[in-house]
């Protein structure tokens, strides 16, 4: 069932997704005007973080499968499923595109989850609902763990380059604090002769 081309395709999609995510993160870091060092570190970190995230998801799925069915699944199969599901590529690509933010991303998250569950159930011969429950549980575990970390470092601005921890996005207040406003407005130099006060 698992052919080399299957695994290769899965890995290729996984790598492309990570690259796409890294590009999106690079753009965000540009908006934060991060220096060259932090920008490079941030892009590399994003690429690796994406891979780690997917691998963590795979690991969680593997663990849950083992608990439910008392036997370990083929790790390659799980990896292939995670990579092959094309939705992660679409998801990470959409993350590059402005505005597809909240609504579309949540919908795609759900689509990705259903797709992963369907693929996994088809490939592992598992019960579809059990598989879905497994994926949801693993997804929640990863999500909660990262949410806990993000909360812990919620005000660590110096960690924002990671894209995972710290405050990444500029708020209107941040922009206003950094850029000149009306109070800093300057008068146009006059071309007329200036008459000293009192004369």
């Amino acid at each position, binding site marked *: 069932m698992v052919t080399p081309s299957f695994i290769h395709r899965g890995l290729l999609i996984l790598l492309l997704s990570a690259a796409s995510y890294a590009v999106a993160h690079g753009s965000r870091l540009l908006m934060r005007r991060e220096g060259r060092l932090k920008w490079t570190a941030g892009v590399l970190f994003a690429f690796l973080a994406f891979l780690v995230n997917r691998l963590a998801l795979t690991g969680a799925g593997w663990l849950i499968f083992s608990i439910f069915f008392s036997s370990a699944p083929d790790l390659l199969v799980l990896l292939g499923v995670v990579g092959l599901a094309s939705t992660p590529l679409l998801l990470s690509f959409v993350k590059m595109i402005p505005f597809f933010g909240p609504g579309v991303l949540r919908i795609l998250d759900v689509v990705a989850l259903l797709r992963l569950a369907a693929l996994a159930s088809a490939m592992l011969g598992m019960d579809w609902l059990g598989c879905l429950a497994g994926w949801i549980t693993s997804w929640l575990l990863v999500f909660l763990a990262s949410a806990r970390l993000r909360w812990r470092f919620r005000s660590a601005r110096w960690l924002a380059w990671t894209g995972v921890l710290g405050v990444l996005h500029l708020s209107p207040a941040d922009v206003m604090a950094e850029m000149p406003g009306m109070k800093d407005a300057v008068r*146009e130099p006059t071309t007329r002769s200036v008459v000293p006060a009192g004369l």
Partner: protein
Amino acid sequence: MTVLTAFLGAVGLVVVAVFVFAATSCAETIAWWTERGRNRAAPGSHIVIPQPSPEPIADQYIIYLSGVGRNSGEEVPAKEAQFLDMVENGVPGSVIVRDIFPYSPSSTPLTEYRVLNGLWTGIPRLARRNRRFMTLYHIVYFRNLLQVCMSRDRDYGPPYAYGLAKEMIKGLLRHGYRPEHPRPVTILCISGGGQLSQAAAPYLREWLGSKVRVISVGSVLADDPGTQDLEEIVHLSGSRDLTQYAGRLLGYTGWPVFPGSAWNRFVAAGRFRSIPIGPMKHMGLGDYFSRSARLPDGTTHVQRTAEVVIGLIASQPGRIGSAQRQASPAAATGAKRDLPVPVGTSVSASGRA
């Protein structure tokens, strides 16, 4: 089979092109914000207030934000220009700032300083030569629509809105507004201009020292956090215009099931008013500015829209001199603009002293 394959291939190419176009839509904002954009005012450049001039300043200022069909601030379509003239003539003492291109954070026209300069200048040229090429304008619509979407994005939205608000302030100053003599400012917007005015609201409030009012002519409004920094939104709604609902439908946080969202709090506070204006469409023949389409009573669409807008602007709270001047929708069709308020005139709460 070959035809089907070719068709599917073409569709695939279009889909890929659309995605690539969308993915690169933030490039302009990134380039401008990181000061890589050539020939553009840097985001950190100071606003320059012109020296006091003998020219009188106006009673109130209206900033016009156009729809997604424009490719520069200077080039105003004839029917939009006529509508703006009607409004300006109908409200004596008002000045409309109409040269802002809101689909660029630095108000840079599509026809200048761009990699795809040839495309943006070529589309109007082709459309003038043959009306069939008007369909190419959809590329301009799509490009500008993406900028509207971007103003809602949490990564690119705040800097974009900052740039737009700054261009609005510069536009006001160009037209005689002076910070030392504050006057009411209203944003008159259509189509994508609605969301853009919501996004720019926090910066305008900070700079002008007061909340601005928005008169939306069938604009696309969304649940932007900046909405709270607007005084009110008066929305003119055409019954044949479905596009106006796009922003509130697609941005799910604006749905009534999220009462805590910025938009729903704004609506609950009674700061959003919708005025049905008749069977008008969003764009094309029969739109809000249509000069040939008529309502059942014989009024043209543009006349009705102008009348309602004039009424709303004339009733602007705190409008300087509103007691003395009578807004006249009838004068909208060609009366000469009244002289604005002289500089240095002291102003009382009830009007001019």
